[in-house]
Every structure is written in structure tokens, then in C-alpha cells.
């Protein structure tokens, strides 16, 4: 039983990341009709916002000490933390909480990146075939990841969760099962964080006038335009919001998976499957499919399942996608007419 609960938690956790990326992908596709293969790179850029913020906080003043020599005979470097020297204990706290605090930095940075990406490149491809959009956004993703590799190297860069959340929560205690189910605090936080972000995006679209216009534009952009609303500008902002959602997903994922330049690509393909399974253009479908596929992937990795069907853990997502598309061609919650022309 404890093994099953642990796998459900794993699935929800992983599903949270899939859902956040797929949500952004669907927003972009639903509003702008663009298949954005650079969306995974936005997830990666968000993670590197956290890395950069941490690097800035841990900048050191380097002085040479000629009395100590390196093994190759040059003067040894003595490093002192600038932030800790300036802010004392507050500096240490800031470094400790660098990942959650970097959210404040990531929001404007990702919004600007999203808007620049849409205005500078993607808008020129609105009326081009999907194949062109895929090629250009895929190319953009490669460019972005090579830039990151150039500045940060290819190796993963670990980011620590705040010390207070570094241990494990005894989930079993809450369920009256003793200490059999330890689960990392940060993964639980990530799960609730992703649910929170999903809730905020849905509330924004559902309960604000801006969101209502965007939803109307997703249904029929021409009519909304005829009403004198500059729907294109709003869609640009939506692209920015999608970039922020992907970026925040990346920021908070850094203590779970040490980020490297390729992490966006690792998530991109799976997230596209999530979008297709959920139904093209369906925000609810993307979220539901994200969590569903996350849980299925976790269960498929259990030894009991793998002993019956070897290798199932590596194909389960695609297998489910095939079955769902055969039985429900529009996906779980797909809308009629989307990508059917």
C-alpha cells in the first residue's frame, strides 16, 4: 500500500511539471495557433533564472594570497562572499532561500522573454504552415540551449532547496500509516505550487475581463477583432504569461532535477504528448492529461508491473496516447474543429 501511495505522489509530482508545461503550450496554441517547440526551452530558461540568481547571490570577492600557493605554483585565491559580507545573517538567509526568491526575478524576465520571442519571431509565422512553425521554434529552442551551454557549461548545476525543506515529510503519519511513507518536502511543495499556478491561470481566464476577451478570442478571433478589441496585443501578453508559467515550473523544479541546458528538450516531447492526449486547445484537458500520464508513468516503473511487461515504463505514455487517440480522436477534452482543417 505504501508503495502505491508513493507512486501516486511521484506521478502527481511529475504530472505537475507536465501539466504546467502543457498548459503553456495549449495557451499558445489556443490563442495564436502556433505549435511552439521552443516551449521546453522556456522551462529551461526559467530554471536558469534560478541558477543565475543563485550565482549572483554567491558572488565572491577574490583576493590572491601569495603566502599560499596552488599545486601549479601560482598564488592561491581567497574567496569571500559579497552578499554575506554586505548583509550578514540576512545574506545567508537570502542564499538559503534563493530558489523560491528567484521567482520574483523570473516573472518579469520570463514575461519579457516571452513577449520578445512572440513579437520578434513567432508573429512572422502566424500565417505559415504548422510545419514552418515547428521548424522555426525547434531551431529557436536549439539556439537558446546552445547559448545556455556556452555560458553555463553542459553539466547539471545543483540548486539546493531551502534547508528547512530539505528533508522528508512523513506522509504516512497523516494517513495513520506510521513512518512508512517518507516523501521529500520540496516535491510536495512543487505539487502544491503547480496546483496553485494552474488555479491562478484558470481564475485569470475565467474571472477577469481580460481573460474573458482572451477566451472569446480563442473561440473566434475575427469577431472579437470586429468589436474593436486589439486581440493580437492581448495574445502577445498571453504568450508572455505562457512563458512565465513554463519559467516558474522550471524555477521550482531546480532542487528536484539539477538543471542543464538540455532539460527543456527532455520535457518537451512528453508535454506535447500530454497536449495531444488532453485535446488540442483544451486547457482543462492539458492539466488532466498531465497528471494522468504522470501517474501512469510512475506505476509503469514499478517492479511488479515491469516483471509482467518488461520495458513498459519507457513506452507507457506513447501507448496510452495511441489508445486514447484511437478511441477519442480529439483527445480527452479536445474541441471540435481545432487542428482538423
Amino acid at each position, binding site marked *: 500500500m505504501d508503495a502505491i501511495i508513493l507512486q501516486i505522489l*511521484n506521478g502527481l509530482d511529475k504530472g505537475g511539471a507536465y501539466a504546467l508545461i502543457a498548459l503553456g503550450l495549449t495557451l499558445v496554441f489556443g490563442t495564436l495557433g502556433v505549435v511552439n517547440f521552443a516551449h521546453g526551452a522556456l522551462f529551461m530558461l526559467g530554471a536558469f533564472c534560478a541558477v543565475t540568481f543563485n550565482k549572483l547571490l554567491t558572488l565572491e570577492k577574490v583576493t590572491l594570497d601569495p603566502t599560499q600557493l596552488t*599545486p601549479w*605554483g601560482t598564488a592561491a585565491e581567497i574567496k569571500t562572499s559579497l552578499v554575506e559580507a554586505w548583509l550578514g545573517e540576512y545574506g545567508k538567509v537570502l542564499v538559503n532561500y534563493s530558489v523560491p526568491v528567484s521567482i520574483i526575478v523570473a516573472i518579469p524576465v520570463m514575461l519579457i522573454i516571452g513577449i520578445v520571442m512572440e513579437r520578434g519571431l513567432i508573429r512572422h509565422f502566424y500565417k505559415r504552415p504548422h510545419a514552418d512553425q515547428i521548424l522555426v521554434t525547434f531551431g529557436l529552442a536549439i539556439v537558446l540551449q546552445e547559448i545556455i*551551454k556556452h555560458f553555463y557549461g553542459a553539466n547539471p548545476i*545543483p540548486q539546493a532547496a531551502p534547508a528547512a525543506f530539505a528533508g522528508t515529510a512523513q506522509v504516512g503519519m497523516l494517513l495513520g500509516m506510521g513512518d512508512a511513507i517518507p516523501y521529500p518536502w520540496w516535491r510536495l511543495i512543487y505539487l502544491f505550487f503547480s496546483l496553485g499556478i494552474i488555479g491562478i491561470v484558470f481564475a485569470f481566464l475565467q474571472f477577469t475581463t481580460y481573460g474573458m476577451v482572451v477566451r472569446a478570442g480563442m473561440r473566434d478571433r475575427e469577431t472579437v477583432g470586429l468589436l474593436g478589441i486589439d486581440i493580437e496585443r492581448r495574445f502577445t501578453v498571453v504568450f508572455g504569461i505562457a512563458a512565465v508559467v513554463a519559467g516558474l515550473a522550471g524555477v521550482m523544479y531546480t532542487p528536484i532535477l539539477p538543471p542543464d541546458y538540455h532539460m527543456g528538450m*527532455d520535457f518537451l516531447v512528453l508535454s506535447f504528448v500530454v497536449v495531444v492526449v488532453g485535446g488540442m486547445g483544451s486547457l482543462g484537458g492539458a492539466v488532466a492529461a498531465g497528471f494522468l500520464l504522470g501517474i501512469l508513468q510512475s506505476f509503469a*516503473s514499478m517492479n511488479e508491473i515491469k516483471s509482467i511487461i518488461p520495458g513498459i*515504463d519507457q513506452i507507457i505514455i506513447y501507448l496510452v496516447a495511441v489508445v486514447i487517440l484511437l478511441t477519442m480522436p480529439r483527445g480527452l477534452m479536445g474541441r471540435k474543429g481545432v487542428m482538423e482543417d
Partner: protein
Amino acid sequence: MSKLIINRRGLLKAGAVGGLALSTPMHFMRGAYAADASCNMPTGANVVFGFNIPLSGPYADEGADELKAYQLAVKHLNGEGDGGMLPTFSSKALKGNGVLGKKVTFVSGDTQTKADAARDSAKRMIEKEKAIMITGGSSSAEAIAVQSLCQDMGVIFMSCLTHSNDTTGKDKKRYGFRHFFNAYMSGVALGPVLGEVYGKDRKAYHLTADYTWGWTQEESMKKSTEAQGWKTVNAVRTPLGAGDFSQYLTPVLSSGADVLILNHYGKDMVNSLTQAVQFGMRAKQVNGKNFEIVVPLFSELMAQGAGDAIKGIYGTANWDWKLDNDGTKAFVKSFGKEYGVPPSQAAQTAYAQAILYADACERAGTFFAPAVIKALEGFEFDGLGNGKTLYRDSDHQCFKDVLVVQGKEKPKDKYDLLEVKKIVAAKDVTYDPAIFGGDLGPADAKTCG
């Protein structure tokens, strides 16, 4: 029908020509023959080395370090810089004037940490850029693929980071040589230390990267830990580059195992180790004992990626920049002066392989591949950082001391993450080549295919 007429003048001429031919020094003759027979024999003033390294993909940082070491080796071979390990190297054939009087130049290619890309890149360097040898690589899949290509083309391959038993076992080739140690040696060196430190009554759970290196690493570790009395609870294969290993780690918690052995390398190692620590495995007690994690193959660059998670973890390494021997000191000094950081084990093995090839050419007195192979087979040397080393002739595997290392609790900086706990003598990790099978194949000279 013509009639053969031999007069006195003709007989004298034939005798003079025959005598001249017979009196020609053997190495001159061999060179003349080799120019036609061995792939990419240099004809001008330069000889081209081919460095096939991962400059992109998950092992790109290791590849970058390898390239730095190769460039340094080329400098030293051509008599530039401080000479690095050439003065400490036991063979004194290299004089710092290139190789056989020819200046060493190099070409490089990006293997992308993929076997097919590595093969394509090596093929290009041999066919288009006339590389006389290929060296490099950061995974066993790459090494095995390139080694096979080099065997077919008749070009010597001096592999770099490859740890699978198969490279010099079932997939060994006459044209392939490995300086790096292997999974079997890691197991033999690490097993007794684990038994000593963690006790004989242990239950191990393996998570293994699902490719040639992972399989042989798992097999070797199982064998060596079971010889210590440990039981293997389960061995689970994980896809290469899985990223999130949580679904493979959680079953460990309820398996009854008290040791997790991560047969992962590179990014997989960083991720699985970090996540295992996040799941509280280092702080856990099982069967009345502290739960332990073991990483059989360590790399300093990967240790940097794992951060604090590496502290206290046992593993093995091929070499460490803090070793106290003349070769290591000379190399660290040379590399540090050039690049401002100490070299990784990837850099050391890359440097050693370039030097060993060049030295073999000098000793053979030719670039003719079969003669260079002969010079490398059974060659014993010292002074390249690993102590006395033998290039065994039967499988082209180097035998030298193996380091058992542990993640330092209080490292001084990011280059001081590993502490050498034990140096296991080469004789203790030497094995019968027959246990891994394979056939070296012929040493026939080939003209690039």
C-alpha cells in the same frame, strides 16, 4: 618467344642492384612498404592526430577537459611548454621534436555523446582529414562503435573514458587500446572496502543504466559484493537519461535493502544520487543499520554536479589530481598553469593516451600501424600518473592501481570533492582475459578500409 640472354655486364648490373637492395636498412624498407599499406601514413612534414570528443551532449564538460589535455599533449610532443609528463615518463623515446621528426597537428570532431555521431566523426577525420590515429570518447557505447570502425579501417584507436568490460572484453579489437580502468576492476577494488566499512550482512539494491556499461558494472558489483556476503535484493534497469528517477527510487524504500548501488554515470548519476538523498535515504535506518549509497564509478566533474549529495559516498576512480607521484605533480603543474584549474581523470587518461601512441611510434620507428600495435602490446611504463602500468597484449587493457575514493565531508573547494581512501594494487585487479571472451582480430595493415 624471347630468349633470356645473360652477359657479363648484365650480371654485374643485376648483382649491384640486388646488393644495394639487400643492404638497405630494414626500417627504411618498412617505411617504403608502409606508405602503401597502412592507413594515412604521413607524407609531409606533419602528422595528424584525430581527437574525437563529446563537445555537446551530457558529457560535454568531460569532452572539453579531454580536448584541453590533448592540446597540451600536442604542445609537449612538439617541444613547447614545460613538457608535462614527458620528463617523468619512463620511456625516453620522445624527444620533444614531434613524432619521428614530424610536427604533430590535430583535427577534432564532436561525438555528441552518441555512438553513431562518434563513428561518423571518426570516419570523417580518417577519410577527409587523414588522421593517423583516433583517440577520445566519453562513453562505452561510443568507444565500442569507434573501435570497431578503426579496426575495419586499419587506424589505431586509443580510447579515453570507457569503463565497460566489453571494450577490452567481448568487443576488443586489435586496433583498440584502453588506458582507463574497467567495471570489473572497480568491483574488485571496491567490494572488500565496502565489506570492511559497511559490514558483511548487507542487502543491496541496484539501479542500473540500461546499456553496455551499466550491465557490466552491475554484474561486476554484484559479484564483488556477494563475495563479501552481501545479498542482492533487486537489480532494476533504468533508461539512459531518465531525468527524474523518483519512480525507480521509491520501491527501494520498501524493498528491505539497506544499500543502494547506483550503476549510473554522468547526468544520470547526478540526478539519481541527488534524488536518492532527497528521499531521505542517507538519513534512513534499515535492518538496524544506516542506509548507504554507493556509486561505483566516480568522476570529479560529475561530483561537482551532485553537490553536497556526494559527501561520504564511496566509489572508484582511475586517477586523482591529488595523488603523490612525480607524473601527477608534473601534469597538474602543467595543466594548472595552462588552464588555471586542476585536470580531471578524463584529462589525465586523454593526455596519457596521446603520449603513449606517440611514444609507440617512436619506439617502432614508424607510423606503420601493425608495428605500432606491436610496440604498444605488452608495453610496461611508469611516470604517467598511475604508477607502474602494463598494456596487456592479450586484450589491450591497461593494468594499474585503482583508487577507492569517498566524497569529502568538508571540501576546500569544488576541485577537492573526492578523497582517496585506498589504492588497490594493479596485481589485485588483474584478471584472466578469457573471462570476458572476445577476439582481438587480425593486425593486418589496411589502407583505410
